[in-house]
């Protein structure tokens, strides 16, 4: 009976999630072996044919090695992942331990596991924390971080289980694709990937491809242009679209700029680009929201994590424009050498699974893009957190006052408070306001990430006030201080709803972990970006309704899902072309394909060179040189191909005006470009081979740019901003009717 009731509940509340009953049976069976194992002096090596036995051994091993005895639900979670699904486990239920048991299980099956997390901090913490458990089970473990050297990385990838952030592993994959010596390759063949915080990695991060950029020449932004656009007035000289993704000059603005520069802008593309970039930097990118300035450099802030993205930079001159805006010395501009989407990265692995606190909301996307199903694992102890309904205000100023009042009131009782703000600037403003009321708080944001661990360690103590950006969201474990439970536990206050309800849930989830008491509330105003960006035309004034706020969030989620979908649709072909190029590249890298091809294309030159070189080593030198030549041009042409496709994609939506499907048109042009790419690689390689000086020391390929990862940048491609034909017809009729 119970199972039927469970089935019905699952169907009603979590449609599409998978049945837990078989896993629960295995865990119950594991319980039977517990007593016997507890007495055993040495744990038997578990056999993966007997899952119940494995669970029992893993539980005992965790108890002995870590002092953590996994609850039944944690083992159920591990089994869900071992069968290739995503486990949704309530925040604070000990996912890390579940994940480690699952990863060890895969390793004991003889597979190689990569545990992908959202940031380096979590990767290292989890690998070191779970280390003893892996050791007890006879599984080797390693981790990589941003600062790891190539040797450390190689050692980490050699282990059975490797922890790393999605961007680190992604960049290693990208770097491996540009090696010119087979001995430098780092990554083994992909096997199993276990994704921690699966919704964040697989959905939020997936909107932006990982981009490997190389340094080209110094930035070309002119400080005068930055000064010029600073004089322009929003709404008069330039306008910003609803979702603050695009900015454009009005005709007044064009007049002003043309007068100041003394040129006709629309005849001078280079100047226009410069102005556009300066305007983008000025109007769309805000200091302490999108980036911070530290040590005379511009650092990007990752919007969904609230952390500084150290290696990220804006490409195509935008970085230089931002530097000019902040009057900093220009750094070199990046040129995109290669890119990979998170889908492309994750679907390389034949085995995939994951875990997160908030998976069901993105269940459709996980199925659509990764072929992953979600299982909802119940919490060990029912959550007792009190989530109050949102408090709604018309003006942001009212909300800010109420926020400080609420903090002061709760603080008077001694209850620890965590305030989640939406960006760095807001967190600092709030800290100032609190100081004005004589309240002391700790601020955790991208600027002081070094103190993260110590701030978090104190956040649960009596009387603590912590103001944070999204940094204190995922994975942060705030332990309650003594006597705090009796006061009601941690009180989480959100200074505004995020663009995704999952981020709200993650913030709430910092309170009430593992059955602790806790509370949460969000304060929302009608002036928040969420309202003004996404539902501007449905809201004019007054206190926004809760329904409107929820609708705005759904609009935001819909927009983001569409960006994700478009990213994927337009990069799928690109990644396929990349795979084919890489297949060829791999043959060149490991074999003699390049030399043979060049010998066939320029036989006279080949024989001539063979004669000029010492007979015993000559051929080897020639093959080495040929390899260098072809690899160089292959990588060079690929970067140019990428630039061409980016440009093609930018304007592809215009094709719909000729009643053609943009995606088909894109494919048609991209395939033609790919054919040209191969021809170009061949002719350039032959030309270099004909003219380059090849001596006993091999080939001297000078002037090659350094290849190092630097930037990622994204922009919105709306596939069809004009709407379908019928939409256009009806919209036009409707505007005519309304006008009358």
């Amino acid at each position: 009976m119970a199972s039927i009731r469970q089935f019905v509940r699952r169907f009603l509340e979590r449609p599409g999630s998978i049945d837990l009953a078989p896993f629960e049976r295995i865990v119950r069976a594991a319980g039977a072996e517990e007593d016997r194992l507890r007495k055993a002096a040495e744990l038997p090596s578990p056999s993966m044919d007997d899952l119940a036995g494995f669970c029992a051994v893993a539980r005992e091993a965790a108890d002995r090695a870590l002092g953590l005895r996994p609850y039944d639900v944690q083992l159920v979670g591990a089994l869900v992942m071992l069968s290739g699904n995503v486990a949704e486990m309530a925040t604070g239920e000990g996912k890390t331990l579940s994940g480690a048991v699952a990863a060890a299980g895969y390793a004991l099956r003889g597979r190689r596991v990569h545990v992908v997390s959202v940031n380096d901090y979590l990767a290292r913490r989890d690998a070191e924390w779970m280390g003893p458990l892996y050791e007890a089970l006879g599984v080797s473990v390693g981790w990589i971080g941003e600062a790891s050297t190539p040797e450390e990385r190689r050692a980490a990838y050699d282990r059975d289980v490797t922890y790393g952030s999605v961007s680190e592993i992604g960049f290693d994959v990208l770097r491996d694709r540009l090696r010119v010596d087979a001995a430098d390759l780092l990554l083994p063949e992909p096997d199993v990937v276990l994704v921690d915080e699966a919704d964040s990695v697989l959905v939020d991060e997936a909107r932006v491809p990982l981009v490997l950029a190389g340094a080209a020449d110094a930035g070309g932004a002119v400080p005068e242009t930055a000064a010029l656009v600073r004089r322009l007035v929003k709404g008069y000289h330039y306008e910003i679209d609803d979702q603050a993704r695009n900015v454009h000059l009005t005709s007044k603005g064009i007049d002003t700029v043309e007068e100041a520069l003394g040129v006709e802008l629309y005849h001078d593309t280079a100047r226009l680009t410069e102005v556009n970039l300066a305007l983008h930097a000025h109007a769309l990118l805000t200091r302490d929201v999108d980036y911070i300035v530290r040590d005379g450099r511009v650092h990007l802030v990752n919007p969904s994590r609230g952390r500084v993205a150290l290696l990220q930079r804006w490409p195509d001159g935008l970085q230089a424009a931002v530097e000019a805006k902040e009057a900093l010395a220009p750094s070199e501009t990046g040129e995109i050498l290669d890119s990979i989407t998170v889908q492309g990265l994750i679907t390389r692995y034949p085995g995939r699974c994951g875990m997160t606190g908030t998976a069901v909301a993105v269940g459709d996307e996980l199925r659509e893009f990764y072929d992953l199903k979600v299982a909802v694992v119940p919490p060990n102890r029912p959550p007792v957190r009190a989530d109050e309904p949102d408090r709604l205000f018309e003006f942001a100023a009212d909300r800010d006052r109420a926020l400080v009042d609420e903090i002061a009131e709760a603080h008077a009782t001694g209850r620890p408070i965590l305030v989640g703000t939406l960006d760095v600037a807001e967190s600092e403003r709030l800290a100032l306001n609190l100081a004005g009321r004589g309240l002391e708080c700790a601020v955790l944001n991208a600027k002081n990430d070094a103190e993260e661990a110590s701030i978090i360690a104190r956040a649960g103590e009596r009387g603590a006030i912590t103001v944070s950006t999204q940094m204190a969201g995922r994975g942060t474990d705030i332990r309650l201080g003594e006597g705090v439970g009796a006061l009601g536990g941690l009180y989480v206050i959100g200074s505004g709803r995020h663009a995704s309800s999952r981020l709200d849930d993650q913030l709430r989830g910092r309170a009430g972990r593992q059955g602790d008491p806790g509370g949460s509330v969000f304060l929302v105003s009608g002036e928040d970006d969420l309202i003004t960006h996404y539902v501007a035309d449905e809201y004019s004034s007054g206190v926004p309704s809760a329904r409107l706020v929820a609708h705005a969030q759904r609009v935001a989620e819909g927009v983001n899902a569409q960006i994700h979908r478009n990213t994927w649709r337009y990069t799928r072909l690109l990644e396929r072309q990349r795979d084919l190029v890489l297949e060829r590249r791999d043959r060149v890298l490991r074999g003699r394909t390049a030399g043979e091809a060049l010998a066939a294309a320029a036989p006279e030159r080949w024989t001539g060179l063979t004669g000029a070189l010492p007979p015993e080593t000559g051929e080897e030198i020639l093959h080495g040189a040929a390899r260098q030549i072809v690899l160089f041009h292959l990588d060079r042409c690929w970067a140019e191909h990428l630039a061409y496709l980016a440009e093609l994609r930018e304007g592809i939506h215009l094709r719909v005006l000729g009643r053609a499907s943009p995606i088909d048109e894109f494919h048609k042009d991209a395939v033609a470009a790919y054919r040209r790419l191969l021809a170009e690689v061949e002719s350039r390689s032959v030309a270099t081979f004909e003219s380059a000086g090849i001596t006993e020391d091999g080939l001297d390929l000078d002037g090659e740019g350094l290849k190092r990862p630097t930037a990622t940048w994204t922009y919105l491609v709306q596939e069809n901003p004009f709407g379908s034909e019928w939409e256009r017809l009806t919209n036009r009729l409707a505007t005519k009717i309304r006008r009358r």
Partner: protein
Amino acid sequence: MLTAFTRAFRTPDLRKKLLFTLGIIALFRLGSVLPTPGVHTENIALCLKEAQAGDANNIYGMVQLFSGGALLKLSVFALGIMPYITASIILQLLVVVIPRLEALKKEGQAGQSKITQYTRYLTIGLAILQSTAFIALARSGQLFPGCQQEILLDKDDVFGIITMVLVMTAGTGVIMWLGELVTDRGVGNGMSILIFAQVIAVFPAELLRIGQQKGAFVFAVVMAVGIAMIALVVMVEQAQRRIPVQYAKRMVGRRMYGGTSTYIPLKVNQAGIIPVIFASSLLYLPQLVTSLFSNTQEEPNAVIQWINQNLVTGDTPAYMITFFLLIVFFTYFYVSITFNPVEVADNMKKYGGFIPGIRPGRPTAEYLSYVLSRLTAPGSLYLGLISMVPIVALALVGASQNFPFGGTSILIMVGVGLDTVKQIESQLQQRNYEGFLK
């Protein structure tokens, strides 16, 4: 085109998709000839023959065209795709009018799938209405005016009538599903493919009839003219003027390929087939009016008489000239509605695009409408002329309304055909890579 198909058949997963689509079309045709229970099939066949032999035009021309002859056979799929198309149009209009639907639409994929769900419900509603109406017509003998045969087995059996309504409604539901299956797992847009199938379904029978009734020479001429027309339509449908557009948003370094990849393609026939459908629908009106008046048995006045003489059948000069002028008018009207130069210019401005040498905003809009009006002139003449062909043929060889190489049929055929082949080619190209270092 043929090479694309043969190559597609050699690619395993594309072959699967093509066979799947063909299978769905076969099922769809089967349902279109399968009679609904309770229909007297022999009598219907007699009535159909009579209707075709007689020169009386029936008012169901367009519906009949879209249903591939299934409608008058009262088959399971008699209603065809029309209810779904009508429902989509109604919902698209409602989205503009009802704020709640507009809000849903903005929520992206999730909201859109809800709207699709409403479209399906509405389709079923419309199907119930239409099937009831047609069966009522069949009961009272008005489906084939002039045919004395009883086309229902038992027109007083209430249970039987309800069964027929249910069967036809269910048929519409199945068609909707088939269309979606083709879109998801086959090639091309499901709904277009099904319309395409219905339009060409009447070909063999009609050609055979021409061959039998008019002899081999007329048949050969009709075929030759038909093929020449298809070639012409294919050519004009692909003709476009490309207006270059630039997006000055990025500093770019070295370039491998010159030339612009970003442009606005303005087609010669920017309006597509809609003006023809509008014009012919409008020309049914006088016919409807006169048939209403003819029931009153009175002596018709001069206007009605003139209409009867000049606007009811297509072989009079007045009809031809009116038809032609209406098409030209509707082409301009439709292009002006669907391609709004101001909207396009605004949108380009918003995303940083511009036509080299022309300022964004008003100057761009003016330039676009200048080019567009130059293109629409030949486009409208072309549409008008193509649509005249069947009427002229009607006058010359006395073909029926279902004349296979009718303007509407050819425009639909070529339109859907080109789209589908393009899609297949696009999928093929993604799979075929060759070249250096292979």
